C-alpha cells in the first residue's frame, strides 16, 4: 500500500488546480451567486477539454484509460476551487453507458459525453422519496419494440443542459435503465414517454448502478475534501491575522484547539478519499469502501464546514467571503448520492458480514 502520487498524477493535479483557479466563481463584489447554480459552460468546457470526464474509461471507448485515482485527484482540485459542475453526474452516466451500452450507444452517447460535446446525466431521485438506487414509482413497460416510461424523476440536476438523462425505472420487480431526452427543467417527467433501453434489467444493470454510484460518491467526496482543505486554510489564515481584544485570534487556545480538531478530520478524510479511489480502481463494486467514505467525509466535512464559519464569526456568514460557499458546497455534497445516515444504516446492516475491519490487502 502506497499513498505517493505518481508524477503524472501530480501534473494532473496542477493542471486542474490551474483550471479551477481560472474558473473560480467570484466571492466578492456586487451580486455574488449563492447556492446551486446552473451549468457554468465555460468551466464545464474546460473540464471536458482537459479530459477529466474521460479519465477512468477505456481508451477504445474514447476514455483516457486512467482510473478513479485520477478522477479523485481532479475532483479534489475542483472542490478546492469551488467549481460547481456535473462532474460526478457525468461520470455516473458514463459509467452506465460504458458498462451497459451497445456499440451504437457508445458511439452516439458515450463518446460525445467523454469529449464534452454533450452532457448526459443520471435521473435517480424521485420526489417525496428517500434516496435509493432502486426506483419507486417510475416504471417502464414494453409496447411492441418500444419502451414507454411513466412517473417523475426529480431533482435531476443539470438536466436543462444535458441532451439526455439515464432514468432508473421499475421493470416488474427489477430495475431497468432508459435513455430519455431532457427538457428545460431540473426534472424528468414521464407520461408514456419513449425511452431507449440501456442494457437489460438484471445483475449487470444492478452492478452498473452500484459502480456508477460508487464512482460518484468518490467524486463528490473528493470535492468535499478539496472544500475542507480550502475552508481550513482560510480559517487558519483568519485566526492568524484577525485581531480581537488587541491580539490575533490565534492567541485564544479554545479556537486553535478546534482548528486542530478540524485538521484531524481533514487528514482522516484525506486517507479515506485516497484509499477509496484505489479501492474502486481495483473493484468498482466496493460498496463498503464507498459507504465508509461517505460516512467519514460526511462527519468530517460537516464539522469543518460548520466550524469554519463559527471560527470566522460574522464574516463567515456572508456571500462576500468564500468560506460560507465551501460550507454550502459541503452541505450539497452530503445530500447527494445518499446522506451520512443512509450510508451508516447501510453499513450497519452489513456488520455481520465480516469479523474485523481490514484495509490491508
Amino acid at each position, binding site marked *: 500500500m502506497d499513498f505517493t502520487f505518481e508524477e503524472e498524477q501530480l501534473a494532473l493535479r496542477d493542471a486542474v488546480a490551474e483550471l479551477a483557479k481560472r474558473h473560480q466563481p467570484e466571492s466578492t463584489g456586487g451580486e455574488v451567486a449563492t447556492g446551486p447554480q446552473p451549468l457554468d459552460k465555460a468551466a464545464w468546457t474546460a473540464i471536458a477539454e482537459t479530459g477529466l470526464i474521460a479519465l477512468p474509461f477505456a481508451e477504445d471507448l474514447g476514455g483516457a484509460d486512467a482510473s478513479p485515482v485520477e478522477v479523485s485527484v481532479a475532483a479534489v482540485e475542483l472542490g478546492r476551487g469551488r467549481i460547481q459542475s456535473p462532474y460526478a453526474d457525468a461520470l455516473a452516466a458514463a459509467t452506465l453507458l460504458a458498462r451497459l451500452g451497445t456499440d451504437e450507444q457508445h458511439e452516439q452517447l458515450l463518446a460525445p459525453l467523454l469529449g464534452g460535446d454533450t452532457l448526459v446525466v443520471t435521473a435517480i*431521485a424521485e420526489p417525496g422519496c428517500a434516496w435509493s438506487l432502486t426506483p419507486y414509482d417510475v416504471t417502464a413497460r414494453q409496447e411492441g419494440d418500444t419502451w414507454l416510461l411513466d412517473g417523475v424523476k*426529480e431533482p435531476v*440536476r443539470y438536466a436543462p443542459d444535458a441532451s439526455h438523462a439515464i432514468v432508473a425505472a421499475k421493470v416488474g420487480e427489477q430495475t431497468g435503465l432508459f435513455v430519455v431526452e431532457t427538457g428545460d*427543467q*431540473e426534472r424528468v417527467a414521464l407520461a408514456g414517454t419513449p425511452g431507449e433501453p440501456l442494457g437489460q434489467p438484471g445483475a449487470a444493470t444492478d452492478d452498473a448502478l452500484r459502480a456508477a454510484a460508487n464512482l460518484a460518491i468518490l467524486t463528490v467526496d473528493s470535492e468535499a475534501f478539496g472544500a475542507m482543505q480550502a475552508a481550513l486554510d482560510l480559517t487558519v489564515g483568519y485566526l492568524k491575522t484577525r485581531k480581537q481584544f488587541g491580539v490575533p485570534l490565534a492567541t485564544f487556545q479554545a479556537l486553535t484547539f478546534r482548528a486542530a480538531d478540524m485538521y484531524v478530520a481533514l487528514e482522516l478524510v484525506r486517507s479515506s478519499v485516497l484509499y477509496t479511489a484505489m479501492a474502486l480502481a481495483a473493484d468498482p463494486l466496493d460498496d463498503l469502501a464507498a459507504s465508509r467514505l461517505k460516512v467519514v467525509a460526511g462527519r468530517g466535512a460537516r464539522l469543518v464546514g460548520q466550524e469554519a464559519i463559527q471560527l470566522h464569526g*460574522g464574516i463567515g*456568514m456572508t456571500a462576500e467571503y468564500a468560506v460560507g460557499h465551501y460550507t454550502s458546497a459541503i*452541505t*450539497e455534497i452530503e445530500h*447527494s448520492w445518499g446522506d451520512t445516515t443512509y450510508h451508516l444504516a447501510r453499513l450497519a446492516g452489513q456488520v455481520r458480514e465480516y469479523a474485523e475491519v481490514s484495509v490491508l490487502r
Partner: protein
Amino acid sequence: MRLELTDEDRAFQQQMRDFFTTKVPQELRDRWAAGGEVDPKDFIEAQQTLNAAGLAVPHWPAQWGGQDWSDLQRHIYLQEMQAASVPPPLAFNANMVGPVIAAFGSQEQKERFLPATANLDIWWCQGFSEPDAGSDLASLRTTAVLDGDEWVVNGQKTWTTLGQYADWIFALVRTDPQAPKKQQGISFLLIDMKTPGITVRPIKLIDGGHEVNEVFFENVRVPADQLVGEVNAGWTYAKFLLGNERVGVAPVASIKKVLATAKARAAQARTHTGSLLDEPLVAARIAELEAGVAALELTVIRVAAGSKEGRPDPASSIVKLRGTQLQQDALELLADIAGPASLLWQQPQDTSLEAWTAHATPTYLNFRKASIYGGSNEVQRQIIAGGILGLRA
C-alpha cells in the same frame, strides 16, 4: 415544586392562544411559518395587533405598556406566540432599545420614543458591531464629536440586521477617544436613518438572503438630545442591552416546531419499506433532540426566575448556548430529511417537490448565524466559565 400550571396560568395560556390564533391573520402567520425572506409589513401588522392588546412589550415598565406577569407567564406568552407562528415583536425595539430608553432615557426621550417603539411606528436597527469590533465590541471606532448642540458621527457599523427597513438606529459611538480604558468614553446615540450622510450597503448572506447591512456614517449630525443617559456611559447601557438580548433568545418553541415538522416530513418521505420516520437512526435523532429541547425548556423556566429586573443571570448563557445548538441540530436534521430534494434552493415552476424542501438547506445555513450573533457561543462559554464557575485567567 409544582408541576401543573395553576388555574390562573392555564387561563392565561388559553387567553394567549386564543389571541394569537384569532387576532393575528392566518395568512400572515402562514407566511411566517413557511420561512424564507421576511416581509416587513407582516412584522408591523403583527406587532401593532399585539400592541393594541398590550402584548407587544409585556416586560417593559407598566407605564410604557408593560404587564405585571410572572416569569412563567412570560414564557407561556412566548411559547404560544411562537406556536401560533406569530412574528415576534421586533427584537431591536422590544428587547433592545426600548428597555434601554425606559431605564436610562430622559422623560422627554421616553415620551418621544417608547410608544412609537412599542407600536413599531419606528423600526429600529442596531449599530453596535464594526468591522474590527465584533466579539471585542469595546474596540469600536465610530466617533461622535460634539459641535454646538449636535454630535457629528463618523465611522462604520456592520452586521446591522434588517437595517434596510429601519427608520432609526441606536448606535454605540466613541465620544472620548482619550479615555483610559476602551470600555470608557463610549456613548449611546439614537439616530434617524434619514439624516444626511448615512449610507446603507446590503450584505448578502450565504443562503442568498439579505438581512444584514453595513451602515456608513459620514459627518452625520445628531441632535444632542438624542444621546441616551450620560455621555461616556454607553458601555453600561450596552451591557444591560446585551444581557436582555441573551434572555430573549431561547428559541424553544421554534425548535419544538421544527422537530414536529421534521417528524411530519420524515413520515411523508417514503422508503421502500415505509417512511424515513420508520428508520431507527432518523427516529433516534428526533427522539434525542426532543429530549434535549424538553430539558432546555425546563431550564429556561428555571433560569428565567434568576433574571429579575433586566439584570440577566449568567445562567441565561446556558440557554443561549444550548438553544442555538439544538436549533442548528434540528435544522440540520430537517435538511437531511429533505434529502436529494434539498439540492434545489428554489422551487421550480413545474415540480413535484414540496415547497419546504427548497428552504431546507438555505435555512440550515442561515441559522449558523445563531451561534455567532447576539453574543457568540464562545462569548457565552466565557460568561459561564468566568461568571458562574469563577474560572478567570
